[in-house]
């Protein structure tokens, strides 16, 4: 026994250290995923007996126009939310200077990330308010008609994304600010000597060195876009007539809200969301793996 431990110590030890984490992860993440997938083949109201209905939940999803709207909105979120990355970069470049009181300006720019999403949602709801909101006061001042952005099916998702970009930009900015600290001054110096400035300096000298920061910023932004839930709940509750829902919100409504309790259908939506996330997660894991191999 003792000699077996001696001989294989190096192989076994990591697994012992990993065991608590693996156990927790399996119990609270992996196992529920399989549970959800299983549940998506049933019809269940959360109270009575479960009925096996095969793929019917998925067939119904294909014919559910609210699901299509939610899916479309998720794509819009994924694309537009990424604007936070370049916006954060430029905010960081702008703030990366030494003038009097720069810490205060940095704090102000970072502020929206610190406050709760609920507060962000409320602030923007008031900003968009059709009768007293700042946006419409400004529009009226310039002679435009007022618009109730949160009550217009064509604008509502963009309105919520704009609210979401505010804190997300701040987050990306902080990532880039720390990244900029580690930019090698000698390379900038060398670039100067070779007559690089402005955009060329940014693109060929600075950005490559910010690659790790960009990678993290993109990852957290994509995850943020897929998790977008609180803002939608606070600002519109999915409305008007369900046109601002995303998959996560639709799943919640179908499974847990006052008028929902279709656990199987909710699980089917969750499975679709998981598949979309898997595309990104797989890409990220693959890249991490490649970096590890390279390094």
């Amino acid at each position, binding site marked *: 026994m003792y000699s077996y431990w001696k001989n294989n110590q190096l192989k076994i030890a990591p697994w012992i250290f990993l065991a608590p984490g693996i156990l927790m992860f399996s119990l609270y993440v992996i196992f529920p995923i399989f549970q959800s997938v299983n549940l998506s083949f049933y019809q269940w109201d959360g*109270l009575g007996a479960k009925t096996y209905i095969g793929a019917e939940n998925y067939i119904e999803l294909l014919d559910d126009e609210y699901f299509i709207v939610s899916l479309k909105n998720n794509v819009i979120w994924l694309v537009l939310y990424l604007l936070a990355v370049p916006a954060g970069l430029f905010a960081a470049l702008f703030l990366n200077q030494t003038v009097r009181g720069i810490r205060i300006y940095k704090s102000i720019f970072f502020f929206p990330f610190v406050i709760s999403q609920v507060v962000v949602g409320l602030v923007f709801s008031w900003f968009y308010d059709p*009768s007293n909101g700042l946006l419409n006061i400004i529009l009226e001042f310039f002679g435009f008609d007022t618009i*109730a952005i949160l009550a217009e099916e064509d604008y509502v998702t963009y309105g919520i994304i704009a609210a979401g970009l505010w804190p997300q930009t701040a987050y990306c900015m902080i990532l880039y600010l720390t990244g900029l600290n580690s930019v090698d001054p000698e390379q900038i110096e060398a670039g100067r000597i070779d007559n690089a400035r402005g955009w060329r300096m940014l693109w060929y000298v600075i950005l490559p060195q910010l690659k790790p920061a960009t990678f993290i910023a993109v990852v957290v932004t994509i995850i943020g876009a897929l998790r977008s839930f609180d803002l939608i709940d606070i600002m*519109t509750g999915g*409305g*008007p*007539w369900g046109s601002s829902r995303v998959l996560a919100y639709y799943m919640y409504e179908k499974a847990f809200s*006052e008028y929902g*309790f279709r656990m199987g259908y909710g699980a089917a939506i969750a499975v679709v969301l998981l598949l979309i996330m898997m595309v990104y997660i797989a890409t990220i894991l693959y890249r991490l793996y490649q970096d590890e191999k390279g390094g």
Partner: protein
Amino acid sequence: MKKIFKNQIALALAGILAGTSAVAGTLVINGDTSDPAPKAAFQAVIDGFEAENPDVDVVYNLFDHEGYKAAIRNFLSADAPDIAFWYAGNRMAPFVEAGLFAPIDDVWADQGLYSLMASSAPGMTMDGKKWGIPYTYYNWGVYYRQDIFEDLGISVPTNWDEFIAAGETLKANGITPITIGSKYLWTAGGVFDYLNLRTNGYDFHMALTSGDIAWTDDRVRATMANYQQLIDGGFFLENHAALSWQEALAPMANGEAAMYIMGNFAVAPLKELGLDDSSLGLFQFPEITPGIPMAEEAPTDTIHLTAGAKNVADAKRFLAYAARPDVQTAWNKALGQLPTNAGAGVTDDKFLNQAFSMLNNNAPGGVAQFYDRDTKAEMASIGMEAFQEFMVKPERLEKILERLEKARQRLY
């Protein structure tokens, strides 16, 4: 956490006492009376019950009003109290079907409720049994700016033409006829209910909400045509889809809008905004199809004996107590609502008196619970969303009705 702990001690104590005295018991009640007035009102009921029944110790677990709707599903199946608060009509159907509520026909018989609560009895009946005690209800109707109507010489409309004419006069004077905030959808459900009750009558409305009639039926189209007349005529407040029902009170209070199709609970906030008995009035939603008996909306709140109740005997004593006329009089006085027991007295208040007489003398057609309590929950959310969409995009009527019909076929 603390409450649960107290609860357990009480149970343990009850267990010890049970050895010596057979009647001593703990009665556990879960409820959602989280707003100040309902909370105080129910506490008074508990105090009164404990004073009359010193051998019973009532443990009341108070939940947040919204959180309760999700919590009840868990605690009814996992750790049932003896009594739980809920709502009448189809809203209680899932719990009755899942065997989580227990029938209390004996309480109804002992207290003579079959006659005293005749008007709320249908909403409490499933499978021919009574599943709870209704303790309060409130009316819906058209709340209006009495002073503006008087100034403009508009008399209270009693039929559809007068209603339209009143709206036109208001519009001509720069006043929006009807205020509404449809952000949370249910307000649109109230408008639809009234239009359908008046266009097609109570029996048709109940058949429609029970899923027996197609949404593409011509009679539904007739209701929607009346709805569209109001929408196309610009009767409703602009941007209502962005407003909650509370936000829609402001235009009414400052005279930009003159009518609100609402429940009695809107009176208190409107009075807080500066209206009083002389500037605020109530009228019954006018007749649309002549000859159809008037039916009203009056959602009923209820308490139920759970199937998992541990102290059934005391729970039934409490339910009987809650049904008593004198208890209901005091309870509803504190709530500012109407008692369900015909033997109970109504608080002397302009709106309650009027509503009480409207419901008892001028609603021969019947009393509906409300769109989201009469229909299945999922149909209710799809339906109310559809009404909101229709109010903004009336040109999509056909698509909306088809969607509703598809949902009906799937759900019923």
